[in-house]
């Protein structure tokens, strides 16, 4: 059941903290697609991405008290929960086993299964795709694969300082493309 109501963000947070299910349904209907799109960037398999999305929404529901509005928008908080959950999934043994027969995906442009190809060129994916190759690779590794700067330095065989500098540059590029 979808609701026609709209809430301001503080209202929504307030209602969610009161465990208001209607507010949660609104939250889901409003943000599930966006979060799913981000999760698919990390986990291309929709069946596995759905598992992650479910876990993410259950966590949002249960951990609403830990959200601190002074630190950022609600969506930013949810996005980080989704990204962390998706990266955790990619590091689980079960996921890695399921990926063994797949080709190594060095490209950030992972085509999510069962999605419309035209969606590939909108949103975050499009923005990341516009970055210079050296920036794109770093954002892929750091943001979508969750590698630490040290791991990236080792993986790409470039100095740690260079990794940090390039990631900063990539992030500023990202901001430019986003706005």
């Amino acid at each position, binding site marked *: 059941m979808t609701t026609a109501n709209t809430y301001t963000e503080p209202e929504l947070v307030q209602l969610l903290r009161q*465990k208001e*299910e209607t507010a*949660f*349904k609104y939250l*889901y*209907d409003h943000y*599930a*697609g*966006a*979060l*799913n*799109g*981000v999760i*698919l960037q990390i986990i291309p398999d*929709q069946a596995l*991405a*759905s598992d992650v*999305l*479910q876990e993410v*929404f*259950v966590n949002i*529901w*249960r951990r609403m008290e830990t959200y601190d509005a*002074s*630190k*950022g*928008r609600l*969506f*930013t908080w949810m*996005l*980080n929960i989704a*990204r*962390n959950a998706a990266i955790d999934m990619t590091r*689980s*043994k*079960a996921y890695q086993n399921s990926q063994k027969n797949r080709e190594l995906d060095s490209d950030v442009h992972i085509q*999510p299964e069962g*999605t419309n190809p035209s*969606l590939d060129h*909108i*949103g*975050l*994916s*499009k*923005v990341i795709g516009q970055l210079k190759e050296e920036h794109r690779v770093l954002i892929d590794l*750091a*943001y979508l694969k969750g590698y630490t700067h040290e791991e990236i330095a080792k993986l790409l065989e470039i100095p740690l300082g260079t990794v940090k500098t390039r*990631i*900063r*540059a990539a*992030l*500023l590029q*990202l*901001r430019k493309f*986003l*706005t």
Partner: protein
Amino acid sequence: MQEYIESGSIESCVLGLADQAEQQELERMCAAYPEVRAARDAFEASLEASAMAGAVAPPPALRDSIFEKITQPESGSLTQPAPVVELPTPEAYSGVGWKKYLVAASVILLAGSAVLNIYLYNRYQQSDSLYKDLLAQQQQLAENNNSIQTRLNELETDLSRIKNPNVQPIKMTAVNNTNSLTTVYWDKNAAEVYLLVNQLPKPEPGKQYQLWAIVNGKPVDAGVIDLEPGDGLVKMKNIPSAEAFAITLENAGGSQSPTLTAMYVLGKV
């Protein structure tokens, strides 16, 4: 401050790529400078807009599944909540599995080692007893060798006496109906007398053969004879001169004068 905005720190923090210290710095900067706060808000908004633009509708069934999940604890609130059982993570499982294999491998190695030990111990015992047998055999052979050596020395000595040109062999043939035969090897210069018993009947108990030298027609005691089978030359008493040698059977220990009726052999020089 503008420098901070241009440092990429805001983006790093918003995207969750920053460490604790960087996050705290952004919070401080946001509290202190509205411009920083505005820059953060703007990036967050653009990020959200971008994610919204890239939305992919999840499978419709997921919605009900999630609602069911979040309402479960509510409906079950009247009853005692089920105890949370910590399921081992796949890593934990793999850790246990790894250890299991290690333990299994250790047990197999230990069992193998024990079997090998038993086998080697048996082999060692076999070798040890074989070694002791060989040692005893070697000792036996050494003793045999010694006795043979001794015997060889005796025979060589005997042979050198017989070969001595100064030594005269005197064959003493039977004077009774026995097949007795003895030989005296006499070195006149040295007066040494050696007796070789070729054949003499075994004396009765309490009896002993005695060698006599006949000197000027009178018998002179040349010593009693101990019959030992295999004996070679036996040194008798020194006799400087004699015409003949004879052997009689006397009471054990010998007699002052020979019992002529019991003479066995006689040989003239």
